[in-house]
């Protein structure tokens, strides 16, 4: 449905996107994650035909985004990051205007407009000028315009940004209802929402895709970077020293100690499982283990690891 090959964008000497490659299959809901300035918005703007590439190609539904821009734009619904809307228009007027520009026949337009008003929960504000809407209703209006022509592909740039938690939940629910029949590519800063709502996540950093997979798979890959929470009956200094000397242990940090008990976080090297070695050490030293819990990496750990310069094994 979406194929991106060697997509590159330079703004002067700044490399915003660096030879990016990925594909998205029909029906997938893909989250685009990355820190500010990573290139997410540039990527989405290029996929919608708004920005031309410096190098590379992007195809949407077999149409090249740049040579067949109109065909692509007819097939996608796009919600830009800043959700720019014409403040002078009322909500219904804006939807009518978008329906005409989308060439929705007049006989179908009223039905399509009423449908998106219901889906996006805009009934209470249809007659209001957009200038007087709350941020949540503005976002819903932008989303309603994006889905008005029932596109196969939705591209949403931070659709929950700036909304309060209730509004965020409403927008997420709305996307959940849409995802059953559409391909959705959305960028977000909120890792929890990507973990909940996306079939797949792409993590982008400094213009490059640094991870691509389902949130679960990425979490498992990240588990190699995991840590053990350890509670031992042992002398503090000796325990830290002995555990730190084990193969596969990258670091030991003291959480707290009470009388003869120490609570430690044991950071493990990628791909290594040090639980048996710790058990053997505890037996040898006669340090009873009160607790040993592996902490699986979350998408947030993976994201932090990748965007702060590390690598997943």
């Amino acid at each position, binding site marked *: 449905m979406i194929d991106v090959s060697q997509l590159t964008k330079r703004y002067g000497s700044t490399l915003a996107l660096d030879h990016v490659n990925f594909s998205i299959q029909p029906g997938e809901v893909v989250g685009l994650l990355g820190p500010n300035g990573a290139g997410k918005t540039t990527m989405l*703007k290029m996929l919608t035909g708004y920005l*031309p590439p410096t190098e590379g190609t992007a195809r949407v539904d077999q149409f090249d985004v740049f040579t067949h821009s109109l065909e692509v*734009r007819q097939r996608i619904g796009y919600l830009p990051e*800043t959700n720019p809307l014409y403040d*002078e228009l009322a909500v219904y007027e804006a939807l009518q205007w978008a329906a*005409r*520009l*989308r060439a929705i026949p007049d006989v179908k337009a009223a039905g399509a407009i009423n449908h998106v008003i219901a889906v996006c929960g805009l009934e209470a504000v249809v007659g209001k000028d957009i200038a007087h809407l709350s941020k949540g209703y503005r976002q819903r209006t932008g989303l309603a315009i994006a889905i008005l022509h029932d596109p196969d592909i939705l591209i949403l740039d931070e659709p929950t940004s700036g909304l309060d938690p209730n509004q965020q939940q409403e927008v997420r629910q709305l996307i959940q209802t849409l995802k059953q029949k559409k391909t959705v590519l959305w960028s977000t800063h909120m890792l929890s929402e990507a973990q909940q709502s996306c079939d797949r996540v792409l993590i982008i950093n400094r213009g490059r895709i640094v991870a691509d997979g389902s949130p679960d798979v990425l979490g498992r890959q990240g588990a190699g970077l995991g840590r053990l929470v350890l509670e031992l009956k042992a002398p503090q200094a000796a325990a830290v020293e002995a555990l730190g000397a084990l193969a596969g242990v990258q670091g030991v940090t003291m959480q707290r100690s009470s009388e003869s008990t120490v609570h430690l976080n044991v950071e493990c090297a990628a791909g290594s499982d040090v639980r048996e070695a710790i058990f053997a050490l505890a037996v040898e030293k006669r340090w009873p283990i009160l607790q040993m819990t592996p902490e699986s990496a979350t998408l947030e750990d993976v994201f932090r690891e990748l965007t702060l310069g590390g690598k997943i094994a």
Partner: protein
Amino acid sequence: MTPALRKSPVATLARKELSILFNAPATYVIFVIFLLITGWLFVSPLFLRDLSSLDTFLQPLPLILTFVVPALTMRTFSEEFRTGTIECLATLPITDYEIVAAKYLAAMGLVGGLLLFTLAYPLILWLVGQPDLGQTIGAYASVVGLASFYVAIGLWASSMTRNQVVAFIVGFFACFIFYLVGQMAELFPGGIGMLVRPFGVEAHYDSLARGVLDSRDLLYWASGTFFFLVACLASIHSRRWR
């Protein structure tokens, strides 16, 4: 949904644009100022000097419109850039030239609306005398040509910046230069004045306003309008490549 057969969105865009322009309070301020000035120019000779002629209103019009038209068109693109709605427009299935055409038509609609009010002046002349109908029609054709040229300049100026005031200043100076060229032609030495004068608006405006229909004048308005609309299109394109 299968994309429907595409019909031109220019009329839809132009209608929306026109409604936004007519919703702006500044539009009405400009209308009132323009009508006060032109009204005074027309009425004062009529009552003070018993002179019933459209010339008193028509002759200063190229200068008055150098202010009025850029003031009416300054927001057309700059406001889209400032608020980001250009991204909305540019990602809808609309080509850039359709956007420019729609904005041109809307701005012409607005200026046309303004000029409609001035039809009161020839109507008053009809009540008090027998003005030449051909000359009146020629005069208005000339004003429409001039307005079209200035509107294209105003759109181009607006496409260059996200600041409305800058758009107004650039538009005003560009229009004023074309006004000034005709006025200053006589000051140029030798045959240079003859070469320069056709580039100014005055030569083309005056002859049509006298009721003389010359294809060179029509070509001047059409080609000038076309040139600045193409420049406007190029300016919009270039913003994406920056």
